């Protein structure tokens, strides 16, 4: 059995971690959170220079032609380091849409500039507080143009193009709309995690191109992305666990390190349990994604639920372990707490993914 990342993949992970540490990405996340910029342009160009944005794009389209396991280890480090870039939108969602469902001409036009980071793509799916379904999507594509509006589009204010879910006749599918097209209006939306920008977008007879689609393709896109989001969440969860431990070791109360109190130790043990379950499930997701396994829907939902739970547990209990200091603007705990919520909501809520998990097990009866 070889249920592990290879030595090369672990080395890539180490390179990514060291690079992101050197770039002080947590500080950068705070700068974006507090400032006017939507993302860290300098960091983004360095991430692209490292080749991270090009990881799974085939060489013929200007990519590195590596596999999804490589992308998983990069995702974990980006999550751990809170990197304030549009990586998840552009790579896990927009690039994936084109790779999986784009025509060759769409690939020719978009993939090289996605690989180099010159172009940023975003996924526009949510329309209201109700989770999007095949029945409730109201954006509509007809005769080459798209009408309707979307909200909470992550990186929507900086994207060069959007992958938009919309109905077309009796089917719901994916469409590509350039943000510079006539009839596209982008409005920034303030969010609970300002280190990641969001926007509302309206389309009025905006020119759109069709991707090879159908609702099942949207499901597949979300399943594939869920594995990569899970790795980001796992990295963030582990970072919170380590922060909590370091703080507890150095903080003294009642004449002793608070890390010697069982109340704190058991809290940390619970975090460890959540992180280990999530890591093991993420590996399952990585395996399913990288091998195009028929188990992907089950594996994706499993790792998504598990990693969301771990990040929630670790980010809230990290604040708790820090006591009053954890609640201050000055300490970094809240950066993770915010990002945890942002990532957990990004491609569908916990309840939705739990329901997907049970549905996929019912379908497969694969237990």
């Amino acid at each position, binding site marked *: *059995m070889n*249920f*592990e990342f290879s030595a090369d993949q672990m080395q890539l992970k180490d390179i990514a971690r060291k690079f992101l540490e050197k770039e002080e990405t947590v500080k950068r996340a705070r700068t974006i959170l507090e400032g006017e910029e939507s993302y860290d342009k300098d960091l983004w160009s360095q991430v692209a220079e490292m080749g991270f944005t090009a990881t799974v794009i085939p060489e013929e389209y200007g990519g590195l032609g590596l596999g999804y*396991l490589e992308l998983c280890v990069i995702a974990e480090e980006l999550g751990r380091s809170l990197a304030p870039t549009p990586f998840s939108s552009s790579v896990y969602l927009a690039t994936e849409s084109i790779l999986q469902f784009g025509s060759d001409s769409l690939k020719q036009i978009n993939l090289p500039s996605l690989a180099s980071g010159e172009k940023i793509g975003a996924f526009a799916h949510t329309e209201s507080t109700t989770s999007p379904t095949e029945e409730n999507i109201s954006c509509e594509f007809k005769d080459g143009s798209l009408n309707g509006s979307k909200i909470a589009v992550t990186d929507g204010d900086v994207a060069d193009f959007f992958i938009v879910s919309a109905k077309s006749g009796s089917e719901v599918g994916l469409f590509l709309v350039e943000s510079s097209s006539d009839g596209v209006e982008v409005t920034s939306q303030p969010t609970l995690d300002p280190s990641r920008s969001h926007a509302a977008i309206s389309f009025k007879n905006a020119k759109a191109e069709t991707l090879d689609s159908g609702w099942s393709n949207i499901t597949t896109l979300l399943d594939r992305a869920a594995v990569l989001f899970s790795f980001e969440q796992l990295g963030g969860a582990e970072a919170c666990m380590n922060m909590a431990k370091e703080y507890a070791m150095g903080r003294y109360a009642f004449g002793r390190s608070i890390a010697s109190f069982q109340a*704190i130790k*058991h809290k940390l*043990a619970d975090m460890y349990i959540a992180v280990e379950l999530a890591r*093991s*499930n993420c590996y399952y997701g990585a395996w399913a994604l990288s091998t195009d396994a028929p188990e992907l829907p089950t594996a994706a939902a499993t790792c998504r639920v598990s990693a969301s739970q771990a990040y929630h547990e670790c980010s809230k209990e990290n604040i708790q372990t820090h006591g009053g200091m954890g609640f201050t603007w000055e300490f970094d705990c809240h950066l993770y707490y915010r990002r945890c919520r942002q990532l957990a909501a990004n491609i569908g809520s916990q309840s939705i993914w*739990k329901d997907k998990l049970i549905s996929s097990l019912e379908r497969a009866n694969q237990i």
Partner: protein
Amino acid sequence: MDFNDTQEEAKFRKEAYEWLKANASLKEGPKDGWRAASEEEGLKEVKVWQKKLHEDGWACMHWPKAYGGRESTPIERVIWGQEVSKFKVPGGYLEIGQGMAGPVMMMYATEEQKERYLPPLATGEEIWCQLFSEPAAGSDVAGIKTKAELDGDTWTINGQKVWTSGAHFSDYGILVTRSDPSVPKHKGLTFFFVDMKSPGIEVKPIKQISGGANFNEVYFTDVKIPDSQRLGAVGDGWKVSLTTLMNERLAVGDASGPDFEEAFTLARGQDLNGKLAIENDAVREKLADWYCQQSGLKFAKYRNISALSRGETPGPQSSITKIVSGNKLQEVANFGLDILDSAGIIRSDEDGAEQSMYQYGFYGAAGIRIAGGTDEILKNIISEQVLGMPQDMRADKGIPFNEIPSGNK
């Protein structure tokens, strides 16, 4: 990343499977398995099976061949475990002897003693128990009081042990005692092995909340043990105990009983408030949680096996198994009984009755969360040994054992 065997592993797996196929019958479904009519019958069947295993070289696989083992690698033991789980074969009774007494004898007994005692452990002819816990020393097992006094070459033992699984059918036991109460807790312990037929040993079964009686109180009244049966130096008993405690934590793994599959199947066939339980969102959320826990444990195990397959030492991720599976079992059992509504209260002696399995899990989980290290002790171990956090402050540190406050429970 894959789940495949190496060529050597595949060859070994085939060999194991073929031997099992020739000597046992395959399980007919996930709920199928070996069951004995009674404890006595079970013991007989286990001994017959173990003898067969030993004859063909499948007993105590990682032990030296000289003592009845096979000198197998850790990955071979894992593969054997995976293959054997497909078959209906007798089990139980021998784990404590082979898993805990064996290693400590291997490490501390004389060559002559090893030659005498290890082979019958491997063949299943002799059964051993572990005499550690006492009424006033559970999680704080170093706080035991059973007294050992040396006169010439003979020790005299007085005191009481408790929770001793299998003491009533064991031939020998490993025993930790207090030989010097005037020094601090961990320093005055001495370790022995003892013939359970010795005069002065009295075994009384303890009735558990399930109604069964798998473990016992064991009373020692002027029991004589020759000094030659001491394992490790006088006063070194704690160090010797740690060898077996580490093995115990590895041995007590997954909680057995209804799991996700059973709850899922039940929810798909059982009505709840006019529709199938599986259509209830609260039920779906719970099922999803258990599936994720079960899957997380399964793939943590695969990560361990991968490390073993590469010849490396597995990471500490297996330390979470008992906590997660014990708590999951308790919740699944409670759910199963709840879904059966008032009928879940009724006991049924009918074999295979739905509620029996959940009732068994309902009782069993309460015990699993305590046996072999409570949830709380395991969380201490995770935080100290895995995360490197400091020990809690102890009120008994450096104090002679006989001056430590002991309360009245």
